[in-house]
C-alpha cells in the first residue's frame, strides 16, 4: 500500500508517519523526494525504526518490487513540492493531508482522501526561502548550539518559520532539533543511535531552515563558531574514554 503524505511546512507530516510506523509490525519503506543531500526526516525515521527502509536514490523498480511484495510505502512530500509526482500517476495510493483548520482550503479537500489536523502554518510560499546544509562530520559544543538555536528561532538571522536539524554533540550523541513557529519552544530529541566517541562521525547530520529574509551567510558562519576543532574533539574524546563505558552496538 502506497501512502502519500502532504501538507504545509511544519504541519507534522513526519510525526504522523512515525506514529503510523509505530503501529506497524511489518517492515516498511519511507521516502522523501526532493531533499537532496540533507535527509533530516529520513535519518530521524531510520534512527527510530531501524527496520524501515529509507529510499532516496534507489531506482523506481526497487520501489515497485516492495509494493508488489505488499510492503507499506510512505511518501512524504515536502511543502514546496507539487503533489503531482510522475511516479504516482496511475498507481493506486492513499492521500493524507496534514493541515491545520486555519490553513484548509478547497485545494487540500480536493486532493486528499483524508485531511488530518496539523500544526498551523503562516508561511507565505511565494516569499519563502529554504536553506539546507549538510553538517556531517561536524561535532557541536552543546552550549554553543543552544545559543545559536535560540538566536535562530527568535529571528536573529531572519524570520524563521521552520527549523529542523540533526546535530552531533561533543558527548557523542546525535540530537534532532525541531522548531515550528506555530508551536511554543523547540523539541529536542536524542536519536536512538550509538554514541560516536572516536574521531569524527561519518553518519548524516544537517540543518534545514525555512523562512524569509534569511541571512544564510550569518547562519553558516555562526554554525562554524559552534564546531569543535580537531584538537578540541580529540581532547574531549580522550576524557570521555576515562569516564563513560562505551556502548556496544
Amino acid at each position, binding site marked *: 500500500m502506497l501512502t502519500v503524505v502532504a501538507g504545509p511546512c511544519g504541519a507534522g507530516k513526519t510525526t504522523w508517519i512515525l506514529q503510523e510506523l509505530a503501529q506497524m509490525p511489518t517492515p516498511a519503506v519511507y521516502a522523501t523526494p526532493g531533499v537532496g543531500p540533507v535527509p533530516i526526516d529520513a535519518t530521524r525515521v531510520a534512527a527510530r525504526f531501524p527496520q524501515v527502509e529509507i529510499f532516496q536514490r534507489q531506482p523506481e523498480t526497487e520501489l515497485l518490487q516492495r509494493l508488489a511484495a505488499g510492503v507499506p510505502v510512505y511518501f512524504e512530500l515536502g511543502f514546496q513540492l507539487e503533489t503531482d509526482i510522475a511516479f504516482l500517476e496511475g498507481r493506486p495510493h492513499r492521500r493524507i493531508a496534514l493541515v491545520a483548520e486555519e490553513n484548509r482550503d478547497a485545494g487540500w479537500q480536493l486532493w486528499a482522501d483524508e485531511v488530518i489536523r496539523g500544526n498551523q502554518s503562516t508561511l507565505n510560499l511565494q516569499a519563502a526561502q529554504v536553506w539546507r546544509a549538510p553538517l556531517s562530520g561536524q561535532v557541536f*559544543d552543546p552550549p554553543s548550539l543552544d*545559543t*545559536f538555536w535560540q*538566536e535562530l528561532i527568535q529571528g536573529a538571522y531572519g524570520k524563521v518559520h521552520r527549523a529542523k536539524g540533526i546535530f552531533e554533540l561533543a558527548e557523542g550523541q546525535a540530537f534532532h532539533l525541531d522548531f515550528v513557529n506555530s508551536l511554543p519552544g523547540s523539541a529536542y530529541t536524542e536519536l536512538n543511535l550509538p554514541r560516536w566517541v572516536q574521531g569524527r562521525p561519518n553518519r548524516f547530520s544537517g540543518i534545514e531552515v525555512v523562512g524569509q529574509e534569511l541571512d544564510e551567510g*550569518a547562519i553558516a558562519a555562526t554554525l562554524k*563558531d*559552534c564546531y569543535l576543532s580537531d584538537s578540541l574533539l580529540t581532547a574531549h574524546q580522550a576524557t570521555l574514554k576515562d569516564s563513560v563505558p562505551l556502548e556496544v552496538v
Partner: protein
Amino acid sequence: MNIAVLSCIHGNLEALEAVLRKIDQQPVDQIYCLGDLVGYGPYPNEVVARIRELDIPTCQGCWDEDIVEGLNACECSYPSLLAETRGRQAHEWTNREVTPETRDYLAELPLTLQQSNLCFVHGSPHSQHEYLLPDTSAFIAMERVLATGADTLFCGHTHIPYVRNLENSQLTLNIVHPAPHPPTHSPTPLPSLKRIINAGSVGEPRHGRPNATYIVYNTDTQQAELREVEYDYTQTCAAILEKGLPAIFAWRLSKGLEYAEKADDPTHVCER
C-alpha cells in the same frame, strides 16, 4: 546626601547619555562608576572621555584591566565556544579602537573606592572577575562585605541589579585546639546589617530588556532605588553595525541579552 552609582557601560554612549540626563532631572551630590567602561560596545573612547569630563570617580573593571594588559579574559569565563569567539572578537576590536590616552586612563583606575562606610568595586573586593549574585551563599556575601570594613558594598559585573540586605547573622566558633584558658564557647558577635547593592549595567543589560539600569542611594536614610532608563538603543545597534562589530551584538542588545554569555560560576576566579 544622594549618590548615583552606575556600572558596566561597555562603550554604549547612547545609554550612558540617557542615564546622565535622567540623573540630571533629580541631581545627586556624587556619581560613582564601577568600571567596564569599554568592551563590546561601539564607543569606548567617547565613554571614557565623558566619564573624565564629568570627573566621575571610577574603579577598574575586568574589561578595563584586560584592555590595559592586552589580555583576553580567560576562556573559563565563557560557557561556550561561541561566546568565547564573540568575546575574543569584541576584545580585538576594542583593542584596535582604544587610543593610548584611553588606555592610560584605564590603567590608572583604582581597584576599589571608599567613602565613609561605603565601598565600591567592580566584581568583588577580592577580584574584578568574581560575580556576587543574589543567590551567592549569604555567608560568602557577608564575608565579602566584612572584608572591606564597610557597611554597604556597591558592585557591578553581573549586569542584573539588586539590593541585598544581610542581617541577623550569627556564627559560633569553638576553639578545640589549642584549648583556650579559660575555655570559650561564646558566639562570635557580628554586625547587624550589611548590604550589597548591585548597580546592574548601563550598556549591556541582562535582565531581558535593553534599558540601562543604575542605582540612587541616600546616605542618610540608606534607601536604595533601582532605576531603569529607556533609551534609543537602535542608535547603538546601528553604530555596532557601522563600526564593524559582530552584527549579532546589535540583535542581542535589542533583546536585552548580553553580547556574549558569561560563565555562571560565581566564585570562580581564574589564575592566569
